[in-house]
């Protein structure tokens, strides 16, 4: 497994004064599904274009399957299937004809290609639509035909650029399942770019967070959250209300953030206390929920609920993408 198949070293691409990709270092292992996660305009597509040899980097090097993409793009393109964002087909041709054209460009014999095309159409669930003109295909069908189109050349790696944008949730789930299945059966390496974190979380073994042309962090979801939130990994949510016996008028004034900070002061490991929609959020480095509950109850306040929250990709996403934008 630990065999690098895509290696990016100090990759940089500038458009005028704008740096789209900045000193990017990334290694992807054979057989994994890697998610490139980032907001629009983060440089994901540019990185993919450089991997395919479709655009030249200003500095740094790209190696795919041990081949330099910049100097030998043809050899790379033979081994890599690339599904561009919002892929298009020749509208006057049927699904099969479109696949056959790609096969011919890859110098696959017609009889072999025909068989393979039918097989792939069955696989992506377009067996009935194979003889329909692609002009009549829906967005989801086009995307699935795109996957078949990528697979017809028997690639070692498939690169999917925003493959799920514009498909309905059911279609997305089927698409992602198909990718996972393909990886299992054919041993493909998959690079998957998206701005949708849930899909990445669902499908990918490892994730790279990409903001403003820089890779902020990479790893699986768990190690990512550990890495990014090394200090304050836990958030404890506490709903506090006045005890049943208390009087109505003091509630609002008594249980303020300051009050809670003062109350929790003796407990070590509390990083911050904030209040949001009447609920207190306590960030801490380890699981202190028992101590916090104890302190609140002892103070005589009523504890409505206390829940522990671990950081998911959502929080990573917002925290870092917002952070990334604020650096500008």
């Amino acid at each position: 497994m630990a065999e690098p198949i895509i290696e990016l070293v100090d990759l940089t691409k500038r458009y005028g004064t704008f740096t789209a990709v900045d000193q990017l270092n990334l290694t992807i292992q054979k057989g994994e599904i890697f998610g490139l996660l980032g907001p629009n305009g983060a440089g994901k597509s540019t990185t993919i274009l450089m991997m395919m040899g479709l655009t030249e980097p200003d500095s740094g090097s790209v190696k795919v399957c041990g081949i330099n993409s910049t100097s030998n793009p043809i050899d790379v393109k033979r081994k890599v299937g690339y599904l561009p964002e919002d892929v298009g087909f020749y509208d006057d041709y049927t699904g099969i004809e479109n696949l056959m054209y790609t096969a011919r460009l890859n110098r696959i014999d017609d009889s072999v290609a025909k068989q393979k095309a039918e097989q792939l159409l069955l696989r992506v669930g377009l067996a009935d639509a194979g003889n329909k003109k692609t002009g009549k295909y829906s967005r989801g069908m086009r995307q699935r035909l795109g996957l078949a189109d990528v697979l017809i050349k028997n690639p070692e790696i498939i690169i999917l650029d925003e493959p799920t944008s514009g498909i309905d949730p059911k279609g997305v789930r089927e698409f992602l399942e198909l990718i996972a299945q393909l990886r299992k059966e054919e041993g493909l390496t998959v690079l998957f770019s998206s701005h949708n974190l849930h899909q990445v979380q669902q499908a990918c073994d490892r994730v790279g967070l990409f903001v403003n042309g820089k890779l902020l962090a990479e790893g699986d979801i768990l190690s990512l959250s550990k890495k990014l939130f090394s200090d304050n990994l836990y958030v404890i949510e506490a709903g506090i209300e006045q005890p049943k016996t208390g009087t109505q008028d003091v509630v609002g004034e008594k249980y303020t953030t300051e009050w809670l900070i003062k109350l929790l002061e003796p407990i070590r490991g509390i990083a911050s206390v904030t209040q949001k929609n009447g609920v207190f959020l306590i960030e801490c480095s380890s699981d202190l929920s028992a101590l916090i509950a104890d302190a609140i109850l002892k103070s005589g306040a009523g504890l409505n609920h206390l829940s522990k929250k671990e950081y998911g990709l959502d929080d990573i996403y917002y925290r870092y993408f917002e952070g990334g934008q604020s650096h500008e």
Partner: protein
Amino acid sequence: MNSINTHVAHPFRVIVNKEISDHVRSWRVIILIAIIALTCMGSMYTALGSIGKAVKTDEPEGAFFFLKLFTISDGSLPSFIVFISFLGPLLGISLGFDAINLEQNKGTLSRVVSQPIHRDYLINAKFVAALSVISVMFFALAILVMGLGLIIIGIPPTSEEFLRIVVFTLISILYVAFWLNLSIFLSVKFRQAATSALSAISIWLFFSIFFNMIINLIAKAFTPSAMASENQVIGFQNFILDLLRISPGQLFSEATTTLLMPSVRSLGPLTMEQIQGAIPSPLPLGQSLLLVWPQVTGLIAATIVCFALSYVAFMRMEIRSR
């Protein structure tokens, strides 16, 4: 790995085949071919109607009777060469104006260039395919006109006439190739097919209508006085002719007129001294070709410049999904 068999078609051929079949099947080309065929038949009809009057036995080019089919008209419809010089650019533009930008807008361009082919295959194939369609069409048309003429007037063309018609067809193809390349270049430059079509058509209109008007204005401003010497007048006329020759249409019409009218001896002004002693006989094909060689070279150069521009622009273009 895919087995690479020697009998499997080369990707370049694959693209050319696809482009040609796309052209042949498209309504656009079918309509254009119908228009051009119809107008050419119309002009042939008028030529046949007036050919009896046009031929005078004492004329030296009476020998080149057959070529008249392409050049004369009774005034109701323009002649064959006028039609070709008018509709040829339209054909070239319509075959090329959406060559690249349509694929880009449809999202097929990035899919095709991510296949293991050299990027220039695509633009070369587009050019070769459109040129093949044009060549087949023009040769078919020329041979059709010859055949019909043969049946109706009953006089076969001489071998020299036949060769002249072949060379004329080749130059027509070259002329259309110029417009084709220009429109391919515009299709690389402009993202919208409508923009590139409109700009190609406006360049064509500029050269076919406004250019001559502008040259006339310049000519009026620079006309030498009645007292000017012979050399001055000739110099002036040559200057105006050179200006006119910036237009590819002018180059084309000079070249084709000379080829189809063997009696044309010079394309510039001639002095009385030069004419004196000349035998009023038609030029042989070699001499006619020699006479129009600069025009043909100019057309080839313009075509190559347009192709080079579109090639460079296409190779430098960054191909992103739509």
